[in-house]
C-alpha cells in the first residue's frame, strides 16, 4: 500500500509503543504520571484495599516496586499501589495536540464532558445532505451518554477486568 502520510512512521510507531506501554519493563526508579482526573492510591495491590491517598491528574510518581500489573509508587512521603493501566509514562501536559504542541489539562477536562453533535457538524450534515446520518449519530450520542461511568465500572468488576482481574 502506498505510504501517504508518514514516511518515517516505523521509528515513530516504535517510540509510541514504548511510551504508552506502562506494563513493559518498568523498573524501580521509573517515572510515571497519573492520567485520570482522580486516581486512588491503595495500601495494597488490590482494588479492594484501603485508600492511601488520592491523586490529581498528572501527578509525577516514582516506581518503587512492581507486582504483576500493579506498581508501588511514591512521591516523597506519599506512597501506595496503583494499577499500571491507570498510569502513563508521559505526563498529560505533554500529550500532543495535532500540531505537536502540548494539550493543556484544562482542555482535556473540557473534552471529557458529555455532549451532543457540535453545531458546526450539524451544519456540515446539512451542506452534505447527511441528515439521516445526523439522526443516527445523535441516536448514538444519546445511547453513549446513557451508559454511565458507574455502569462501566460495574461491568469491569463483574467481568473481572482491569484492576479487578
Amino acid at each position, binding site marked *: *500500500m502506498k*505510504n*501517504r*502520510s*508518514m514516511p518515517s*512512521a516505523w521509528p515513530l*510507531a*516504535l517510540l*509510541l509503543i514504548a511510551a504508552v*506501554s506502562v*506494563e513493559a519493563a518498568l523498573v524501580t526508579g521509573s517515572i510515571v504520571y497519573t*492520567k485520570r482526573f482522580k486516581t486512588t492510591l491503595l495500601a495494597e495491590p488490590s482494588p479492594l484495599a484501603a485508600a492511601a491517598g488520592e491523586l490529581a*491528574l498528572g501527578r509525577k510518581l516514582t516506581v518503587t516496586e512492581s507486582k504483576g*500489573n500493579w506498581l508501588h509508587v511514591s512521591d516523597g512521603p506519599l506512597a501506595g499501589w496503583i494499577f*499500571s*493501566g*491507570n498510569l502513563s509514562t*508521559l505526563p498529560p501536559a505533554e*500529550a*500532543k*495536540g*495535532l*500540531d*505537536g504542541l502540548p494539550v493543556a489539562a484544562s*482542555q*482535556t*477536562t*473540557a*473534552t*471529557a*464532558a458529555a*455532549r451532543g*453533535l*457540535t*453545531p*458546526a*457538524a450539524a451544519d*456540515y450534515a446539512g*451542506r*452534505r445532505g*447527511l441528515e*439521516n*446520518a*445526523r439522526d*443516527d*449519530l445523535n*441516536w*448514538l450520542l444519546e*445511547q*453513549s451518554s446513557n*451508559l454511565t461511568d458507574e*455502569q*462501566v465500572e460495574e*461491568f*469491569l468488576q463483574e*467481568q*473481572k*477486568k*482491569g484492576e479487578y*482481574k
Partner: protein
Amino acid sequence: MNPRLFFIGAVILGLIASPARAQFDFNKLTKAIDKAKTITDTAKDASKVAKGAAGIGPEEEKVIGDSVALEVIGKFGGLVRDEDITRRVNLVGRALARYSTRPEHQWRFGVLASETVNAFSAPDGYVFITRGLYDLAATDDQLAGILGHEITHITRHHALNIVRRDEFFSGSKSLLEKYSGDYREANAAVGQVDAQLKQFDVGVGKITTGLIEKGFDQPTEFAADQGGHDLAALTGYAPGGLRSVLVQLQQPGSPTKKTFSTHPPLKERLKRLPDEPAAAPPPPAP
C-alpha cells in the same frame, strides 16, 4: 454557499446596487457588516477554523470528528439502531478506553449497517465496526482486539495526520486584507466564512477518503494492531482476540470480498501478531 451567508451578501449587494444609493443609509450597512462579522465570529467559535498560529485543539477535533463520523455513517448505510448491540460494543470499548492514554475522553462506539467486514475510527473518540465484522466477533475477547486496534488509531491521532493542519485551515486569513472600505470588508467577511467552510469540507473529505477508501499505511496499521493487542491484554482480555478474528477470516468459506479492504493483507498482519490464547483464562477462585 451557506444560505445565511448568501442572504447577508445579497443584503449588502442590494444596498450597494439600490437606486436609492444616493440616500445610502450607513447605519444599515454597518448593521449588515456587524451581522456578517457575527457570522464570521460564530463560525470561528463553532469550529475554531482560524486560530492563526495556535494549534488545533480539542474543540477543533470535536467538529472534525463529528463531521468524519457523519460521512462514515452515511457511506455505510447508517447505524444499527439496536440498543443491546450498541451497549455491548460501548461497554467493551469503554472498558478498554479507560486504560488507554485518553481515559477521560468521551468515547462512542457504533455498529454500521453494512455486511462488509471492517472497522473505522474517526477523530475525537468515534469507533465504528461493521455489522459483518461484529457478527464474526463472537466473544468479547475478539471484540476487544478489534476495538483496541481502532482506539489506538485515535489515541495516536492517525486519522488527523492524514491532512496537515494548514491544508484544513490556511488560505482564508488574508482575505480581509485584500479589501479596503467598510462594505468591502463586509463582503470579504462573508467570503472568508465561505472559504473556510469550503476548506473545512475538503479537509473532512480527505480524512474520510483516507479512512474508508485508502486506509492507513502499513506501518500505521501494524502499530495499531500491536497497540490494540497491548491494550486488550492490559485490560484483561485475551491477547489473541484480534488474531483469532483474522485467522477466522482466512478459513475457507469466510467472506473474502470487502474484508478489511482498508487494512494490510491478513497474512501480513498475522505474521506480526504473536500466536496467543484467544480466550482469557478464567479468573482465580475467590
